[in-house]
């Protein structure tokens, strides 16, 4: 049982972050990698909200707005790139997208 305290929330956030990181490391589907990146961002927002709540400050909560917006923009651009790439290469597998190397 994890107590619903600051450290508890923080642990969940860190765990979420870690899971996202592992996903980026091991997944080869670009889309899934992307999802994992989003997980990392969400983990940050979770920690942010938790800190705001437990520290009694407002800036963290406001910051979440910005993070969400940025994430949306990022995803939009990223998906556009992925689509364009897929149209040229017919794949979104990371290990096949390695024409640029060495």
């Amino acid at each position, binding site marked *: *049982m*994890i107590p*619903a*305290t*600051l*450290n*508890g*929330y923080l*642990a*969940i956030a*860190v*765990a*979420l972050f*870690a*899971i*996202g990181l*592992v*996903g980026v*490391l*091991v*997944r080869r*589907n670009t*889309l*899934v990698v*992307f*999802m994992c990146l989003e*997980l990392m961002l*969400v983990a940050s*927002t*979770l920690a942010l*909200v938790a800190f*705001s*709540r*437990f*520290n*009694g*400050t*407002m*800036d963290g*909560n*406001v910051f*979440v*707005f*910005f993070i*969400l*917006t*940025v*994430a949306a923009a990022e*995803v*939009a*651009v990223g*998906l556009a790139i992925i*689509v364009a790439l*897929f*149209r*040229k290469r017919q794949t*979104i*597998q990371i*290990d*096949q997208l390695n024409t640029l190397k060495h």
Partner: protein
Amino acid sequence: MGHLLFNVIALFTLIAAVGVVVNKNAVNASLCLLLSLVGVAGLFVGLEAYLLAFLLLLVYAGAIVALFLFIVMLLDTKGDARPTLNRLPAAARVLAVGLVGAGFVSFLTRGRLPEPDLTKVPALGADLKLYAYQLFTTYLLPVQILGFLLLIAMIGVIVLSKKFEGLEDIK
């Protein structure tokens, strides 16, 4: 919120997150992401940040994950196709999981912060008016920047996707 509920939601969130990572199928992965986000929104609620929970669902679940799903369907990929993909040695995966896990454990053991007394701290996040004040006074500049950010993101997506007259296009 009760500890039990917190634990349930937290567990749910994490399991869903793990689902994103381990699911072979991208559609399933995005659905797991959705579930995980819902869980996080639940945690937000637990933290009395109702607006943020709502926004999270709206923006993430409503827009982003939908977009993901849409693209996944559009591109119609079958997840990680096994045979060609297994070029990253399993050892590397183990290493990755091990290192990240070690980091997590190390954080849990060393990164313990003093616990504030929740009852004495006001739940500012629950107050909608404060968001408005902050966004339109203190953080007006970032808001403006974000406006431009969204603009260029939009233009970028257009540039990357639209057919341009007179310019050669994607073959």
